[in-house]
């Protein structure tokens, strides 16, 4: 799952020589699959505790629920690999939600129009983020915090603070339909995963993303157009937020200015649980998908077990911290 570049980066950072002992191999196995094993462990635990957990219906349910946050998390992962951060995703979802919904009423425009407008708007916010970050050299945290506030405000302004309903059936199919029994959001999520994996591992773009995150100065010296690639990266994250906004809107049959509240934090959590380093240079798409599924399994399992809402929050916090703690130990040891 892990790309060649990131492995090299990580090993360089840890100062490890490339001769692999058998112990080293074991750690590398944990390094790659540690989180996947935690996910499998959680699934087994939940299956024991709740007889209805491990059913096809429920497993599809979990993945469908995590599709929206998962798609956002994939974009955020690439941003974090470049040592950036994107706090604007949740608000961009809301803005896209109300704008796309207003073009999705029955018998007005063909369904492709609200979809393209939603994607375009997401892309635009991302490109704005990326341009300010790279050209004005302002910290990503500040720029995307500004976008988070502004986009939420724009969503409220556009919709007058009210939900926008009455959407066409073809638009609703995106979030509610299925193909051969598999919900459409899951298919989109999978497609985004595959495309992003290829982008990150098989293209020059991916190589440069890891290079920028590993050592930005070195990337500049090596002749990488860092500004351009940063704009690409934030643009892609914005595009995926836009896509997530379209899916969410369709799923809940209405454009909501308050939608996507705190989704950015769930997305960042998924990326970090999945092994993405906030220090940059390290992270994989597969890891992030596993991270998103861990959050999804927790949400679903705790609901199934009817754990009190207060305890749910505490348990989620504990599980996230413990998972990352276990994961981080492997880095120290290797």
């Amino acid at each position, binding site marked *: 799952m892990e790309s060649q570049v990131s492995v090299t980066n990580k090993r360089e950072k840890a100062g490890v020589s490339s001769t692999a002992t058998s112990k080293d191999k074991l750690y590398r196995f944990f390094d790659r699959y540690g989180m996947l094993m935690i996910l499998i462990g959680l699934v087994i635990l939940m299956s024991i505790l709740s007889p*209805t957990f491990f059913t096809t219906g429920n497993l599809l349910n979990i993945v469908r629920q995590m599709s929206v946050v998962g798609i956002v998390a994939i974009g955020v992962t690439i941003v974090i690999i470049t040592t950036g951060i994107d706090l604007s995703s949740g608000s961009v979802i809301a803005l896209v939600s109300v704008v796309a919904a207003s073009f999705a009423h029955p018998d007005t425009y063909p369904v492709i129009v609200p979809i393209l407008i939603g994607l375009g708007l997401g892309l635009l916010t991302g490109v704005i983020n990326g341009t300010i970050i790279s050209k*004005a050299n302002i910290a990503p945290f500040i720029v995307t915090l500004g976008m988070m506030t502004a986009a939420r405000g724009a969503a409220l302004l556009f919709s007058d603070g009210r*939900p926008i309903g009455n959407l066409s059936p073809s638009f609703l199919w995106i979030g509610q339909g299925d193909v051969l029994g598999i919900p459409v959001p899951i298919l989109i999520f999978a497609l985004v995963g595959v495309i992003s994996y290829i982008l990150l591992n098989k293209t020059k773009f991916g190589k440069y993303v890891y290079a920028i995150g590993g050592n930005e100065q070195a990337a500049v010296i090596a002749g990488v157009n860092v500004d351009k690639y940063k704009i690409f990266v934030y643009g892609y994250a914005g595009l995926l937020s836009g896509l997530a906004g379209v899916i969410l809107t369709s799923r809940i049959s209405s454009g*909501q200015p*308050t939608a996507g*509240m705190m989704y950015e934090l769930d997305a960042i959590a998924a990326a970090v649980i999945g092994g993405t380093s906030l220090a940059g240079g390290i992270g994989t798409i597969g890891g992030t998908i596993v991270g998103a599924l861990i959050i999804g399994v927790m*949400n679903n399992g705790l*609901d199934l077990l009817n754990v009190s809402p207060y305890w*749910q929050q505490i348990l989620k916090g504990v599980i996230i911290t413990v998972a990352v703690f276990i994961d981080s130990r492997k880095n120290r040891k290797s």
Partner: protein
Amino acid sequence: MKGRMKWISLVVLLFSFSLLFGCNKQQETAQSGDKPGKIVIGAALPDFDDKWLSYLQDGMKEYAKTQKDVEVIYVDAMNDANKQLSQVENFIQQKVDAIVIIPVDTVSAPQMVEKANQANIPIVVVNRIFDGVDKATAYVGSESIKSGIMQMEEVAKMLGGKGNIAIMNGQMGHEAQIKRTEGNKQVIKKYPGMKVVLEGTAEWDRAKGMSLMENWLQSGKKIDAVVANNDEMAIGAIMALEAAGKLNDVIVAGIDATPDALEYVKQGKLKVTVFQNAKGQGQGGLEVAIKAAKGEKVEKFNWIPYELVTKDNVDEYIKKWQ
């Protein structure tokens, strides 16, 4: 190069902050209607654009018309607590006879009450309750717990006093969440045949309500009614139930009577919602303020009853939002 960019960004930041705060300084110069023998009431409202609050204001206006020698000055804080504070200060400067206030937020509200008290001007708080509201002359509003009781009682009636209840909470810790759920549980306790089988939070949000309901449906537990703290979560639950083909087996109830929710009531999908009487609160608030201005004794807490909305009376509420 990098150092210079830092400075430029700092200047840009400071400039945008000064713009932000500069707006707050705009002084409202509401004209003084200080004519002898006339009672002048200052009404500080948080947002003229809010539909529900506009009904509250209508309630005040209608009541004002029935009163002789009463003039009401309405000001709009545009959801800015700072602006509202200066508006209240202006009312005090103008020496109005009483102030009616719907606080923008409950954090800044005590300070405004304090200022009015110092100036010896009666201040009546409407709709939004906060800690220390007893320092104001009076409070007029609806009691959150009542909406939970009303909602649950109607559901109990529909279920014939027995069944499995799932409670969908709003954001945990919000006043409305705590009280509405408390009201639900008070009613459930009265019926031995009813019990809470599931309880979770969907943070007032439709998408989260939908996810929570989907998870509940997977749990295989028998659910006879879903009682949600607000309409948006109830709609989310309805959508999940509909997708699973189980809406006919489960009663769904909400609170707020939003325009969207009323459509669901009309279609028979949402069985119950509860309407907070906006006009009643506006009228009640002004009535108490006028009494206080005349120096008459007023009750500290004045509760305006909620109204139950079901398919039978939904049309009358749909009209209210048009």
